[in-house]
Each structure stands twice: as C-alpha cells, then as structure tokens.
C-alpha cells in the first residue's frame, strides 16, 4: 500500500499544473437560487473574488467589514465582483441572512452548506480568498490580518 501511494504521489507530482480552475460545483444563494461556480461567474475579463467565511469566524467578518467599506472605490477602478462564500453548516446557517443584512454588506452570498466547494479547493482554514479571472485561479490569499485588504487591492490592480 505504501508503495502504491508513493507511485501515485510521483505520478501526480509530474503533472502538476499551475493553471488551476474553479471546480464545477453548484451552490445556492440567499434567495434559494442554484448557481454554478464555473458557468455563472464567467464574464470575460471580470475579476471574481471568492471570499470564504463563516458567521462564527471573527477575522473573516473583520475582513468582509473592511472590504465592504472600500468596495465602492474598488469598483470604480476595476470590473470586479466579491462573492462571500459562507461555509456555515446547518448549525449556524440560519444566522447568515440576518447577519449579512444587519451589517449592510453588499456582497453576493453563496451557501456552501456541506463544504463541497471548500473541500474541492482543499481549503483548511478560513478566511481564505480565491481570485478568479477568465476561469483561472490567479491569486490566493490565506488568512486575514488588518491591512490584507490593501495588499489584495494592489494585487487585483496588477491583474
């Protein structure tokens, strides 16, 4: 079995491809509408920022609060959309809608209830931000500390 795994690792290691795409997963939004990650977020040259968060994750909420304050400015400069992917499972999922509205966030919210998208992207810790342009993952930001949003904006401008 060990040999098998070693062979497998070597085999796959040879074919590693940096041009990673988003997985073909469908998630529902707050209105209950199903959206496909690959087909519904594919406008040419538009930048899609998928920000993974949860209602119980304080740094995630800090990040989305900060970004919400500057989003209007960013949109003046760039053709972009921020999608806040809530990884809350059914324990805290009902808290998403009042929290999002309570905070007055302007994001598109997607519900990753059983963490299908999070798992497909091998995300271990949130906050975690994936930037997609023309169907390809062009940038990943792992974690959030105050100031990360400035660095992210500089990166987005360079795309």
């Amino acid at each position: 079995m060990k040999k098998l795994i070693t062979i497998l690792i070597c085999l796959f290691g040879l074919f590693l491809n940096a041009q990673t795409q988003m997985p073909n997963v469908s998630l529902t939004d707050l209105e209950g509408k199903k959206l496909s990650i690959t087909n519904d977020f594919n406008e040419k040259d538009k930048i899609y920022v998928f920000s993974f968060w949860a209602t119980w994750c304080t740094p995630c909420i800090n990040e989305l609060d900060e970004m919400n304050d500057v989003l209007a400015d960013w949109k003046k400069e760039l053709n972009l959309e921020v999608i806040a992917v809530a990884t809350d499972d059914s324990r805290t999922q009902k808290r998403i809608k009042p929290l999002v509205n309570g905070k007055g966030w302007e994001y598109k919210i997607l519900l990753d209830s059983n963490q299908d998208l999070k798992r497909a992207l091998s995300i271990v810790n949130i906050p975690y931000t994936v930037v997609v342009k023309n169907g390809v993952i062009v940038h990943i930001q792992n974690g959030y500390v105050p100031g990360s949003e400035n660095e992210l904006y500089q990166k987005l401008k360079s795309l």
Partner: protein
Amino acid sequence: MNKKIFLGFILITFNLFSQEKGVFSGGFESNAQWYLNDPCFLDEFYNPVSHPENPLRSNSYLLLNYKIKNWSFGIQGESYLQDALLNYNPKYENVNIGTYFAQYKNEKIDVTAGYFYEQFGSGLLLRTWEDRALGINNSLRGIRFIYKPTNYFTLKTLYGQQRTGFDVSKGKIFGADLELALSDVLKMENSDLTIGFNSVGRYEKTDIVDPNFDKLTMTYGGRVNYSHSSFYISSEFDYKSKDAVVQVRNQIDNNLIKSGNALLLNVGYSKKGFGVDGTFRRLENMSFYSERLAKGNQYNDMILNYVPSLTKQHHYNLANIYVYQAQPNVIINDASLVKAGEIGGQIDLFYNFKKGSKIGGKYGTKVAVNYSQYHGLAGTFYIYSPQDYSTEFLSFGKKYFSDANLEITKKWDEKWQTVFTYINQYYNKKFVEETYGEVKTNIIGAEAIYKFNPTHSVRTQAEHMWANSDKKNWAALLAEFNFGTKYTFYVSDLYNYGNEDSRLRHHYFSVGNSFRYKSTRLSLAYGRQRGGLVCVGGVCRFVPESTGFSFSINTSF
C-alpha cells in the same frame, strides 16, 4: 482489491484522454504533535501529565483531483504516524488510502462512484462530511445519482456503506431526496417557495436472537422554505421508524423499541442594518448511526445524521469551556437521570447603528444579541422492567442549558477597533455530560485591534469568567502581533486561578507563530492543551490535557 481496480480505471481513463488537456489540483495538510512530560502540570488525580508511548505523532492528508471535460477523479491518502494524535479514533492508523471517487457531471446528470459527501435538508437524517480537526470522515462508499432535468427540480438517490477508519460499516445505507422550487413552477414573482422530501434507510443484520426490531430502519423527512422580501420562514419534520434503543455503550436493548422524530422551525426578518432570527427545535430519540452499536462512541464514528447544538459559537476561549451539546438520546436507566431528547431554541438580533448617527459615530457601531435555552423533554418514564417512556409534545422538562450574550463592535478611527462581549451561561453538567453538577457563569470579554501602519497591527483579547462551581473562576489574555500580512506571532494564557484545589490552579499558556504565503500556511506552537471538549460546529471531541510542540502545514495546488 476495490482500490486497485479503481486506480487501474483512473490510469486507463488518463491514457484515453491524454490528448485532451486535463487539470490537476489538490491539497496537503499535516498536523504534528510532539508530546512532552510536564511534572508541574497535574491532572485531576494529581498525576503529572506525561507523554504517550509514541510522543511524536502526526495526522496527514494528501488529496489529489484530476478533472477533464465532464469527468473528475479524486483520491485522498492519509497517514497517522507513529500514531494518530491523542484521542483520535484508533481505527486511523499507518498509511492508507482514505477516500477515492470518480464523477461524471453535466447540466442535468451527476453520477459519483466511490466515496462521496452528501446532506439531505438540514442534515437531521443524513449528512456525510469531513472534519479533520474532529477526526470525522463519515463519507459513504457506493454510488450516488443526481438528476436535475430543470432548474426547479432535483432528485438525488444514493446507496453505500459508511467509512469507518480505513474500512466501511456493516450497515448499508440508501436514500433519496427530492427538492422542488414551487415558486418557479407557479411563477411566483416576489416570493421563493421550496419544498423537499427525503428518506434514508439503514439495513443492518443483528446477532440478537429473536430480535423485537427490524433489520431495516427507515427515516422520512419533509421540509419547506418560504421567503417574501424581508421575511422568511422554514420548517423541517423528520421521523425515524421503530428501532432498538442503545442506552449503554455496546448494548442493544431488545426490550425498548422506540421511534424517533425531530421538528425544526426557523423564522426571520431582515433588512439593511437590521436582522432578527428565531429557531425552535425539538428532538426525540434521534441519534442515527450506520451501525446500531456505534451509538455514543466518543469518536463520532459512523455517525449518519448531523444534530448540532443550536447555540452561538463563541470565539472567546473561556466561553468554550461549558459548551452545550445537542441531546437527541434516550437514557432511562437511573431515576435521577432520564432523557428522551431536547426542546428549545435561540433568538438572534443584529443591528447596525449607521455611520454619522449619535451612537454610530464616524464608522458605525454593530450590535449582536443572542439568547438560547434548551430543556429535556417532559413525559412519563418507566425505569423498571419493562422500561418505557412517553413524552408530551410541547412541554419543557429539566433545564439543560441557557446562554444570553451581547456583542458590541465599534471602529473608533482608522487605527482603533474594539469589541466588547458579555455572556451569561447556565450549564447543567449532570444532564449534558452525564456526570454531576451544574454551573452558572458570567463572562466578560474585550478585544482591541490597533493598526500601527497599513500592514502591522496588534490584537489583544482579555477575558474573565466567574463560575459558581466546578473549576470556578478563570482569566485569559491573548496578544497577537501581525508583522506584515504574512507573519503572525502570538502569546496566550488561560489561568484557572479560582480553582478551589490549589494544586489544580493551572496556567494553560501557549506561544506560537504562523507564516502564510499564497495558499500555504505553516504554524509552530508550544504550550499546554486544556483537557476537555474541543468542538467544531457543535460536534465535540474529547481531548486529554497535554503539553508539547505542535506543527502544522497546509497547502493547496
């Protein structure tokens, strides 16, 4: 053998499609611990904390996916060396292939063979998921077929056996879930209305001679979701057919054959700057495992449904000492401790004082209030043979838990942000943990973030808990320094200074740092682990007290 056939299949497909360009992706995660002896750190029996037989242990996961056209293939290798981390399921050992799958997916059809993750409705009848921090991977190995002919109709059917360690359960699971977006069918313009039905069956033979229960246990559920502009309501009802109750670990009770049910109701209203949400839940005899005897095992092994505690998940350390766990089980062995389920609910309120208002100030002030309370089910319990019980539908029995909390977040200027929290908890330890005692707590937490410049900042968090019994008072401090966006250093201490036993007034200190770059995160820490329950998403794992170094790495590609 299955694995070899599967690998062969992958390789063949790989060659068939080699002219086409497929895409690889995956991830790697490893969590390692080096347990040390700590002579000054005594457990409740005054034995110093000592390292286990193999002091150096790690749990590692390598996930590889290959996607080409409508096909996806995945395989996850896992290693637990020298052993799994303390108090993980001992069935996780050595190096092996944990899960694998092949999937074909187009607009209308989605077929998966191998291991898959699925959830029906809120998960009260079926949820398979992976939580590495808790050692849960209860994916089903079998086949799943999803048919979605139009936007408003989805039918899922599945069959499989559940993963347990590197093996699968003896119990065989099958199920179907149907969801219909009625608002699309009826062309309702301003409202959303969705209904769903599901059924899950478990087929498990038994060794018991003359069983009074069926090999087959069936469950049925129905749900409805409605929203109209700012208002929304949803409900779910589930029923589990009669089956033998397992009260004591490893003991099927052939004389107590009961059905189970669950009711969930959620109502909310929210508009910009304001949100309110209320949830009610009643559970009766609703634990469901892929093997009867797995019930109550401490590793959450072969758990088939998801019954989280519906309370606020606090991020303060001291608020996570007395954590409620949902009580779906039946116990009637002891007259002073009888349980058949739980009843209760919670209310959430979110309000944003606008920028420029008196309380809002320049940057706005955010307030969150939450209250939850849970009781046992009231009813009649017959302790002596024949054992039996009957419950009343909407009446509250013994109080198990309550939590009232308030959180105020305020940004003062470009540099300062503060969060203030007050929490009041009641925890009936006797009933929740099936031991003894009850605890009332008051917790105050304050958090401040200060930005030195756009990328350097410090976060401090101070907490105090007044508890009237058990381990009594605690204090905690945390300081976290962010040097740029990639590097973080932290020190923290939890101090149980109020413990009546002076030998157990421990400091649970920890020093650590983490480095992040793109999709990679590395962290190294040294410190003491508080013994007790580690909970993620309302599901808990017991961990013993320990001291040592921990190292973790994770990355995706």
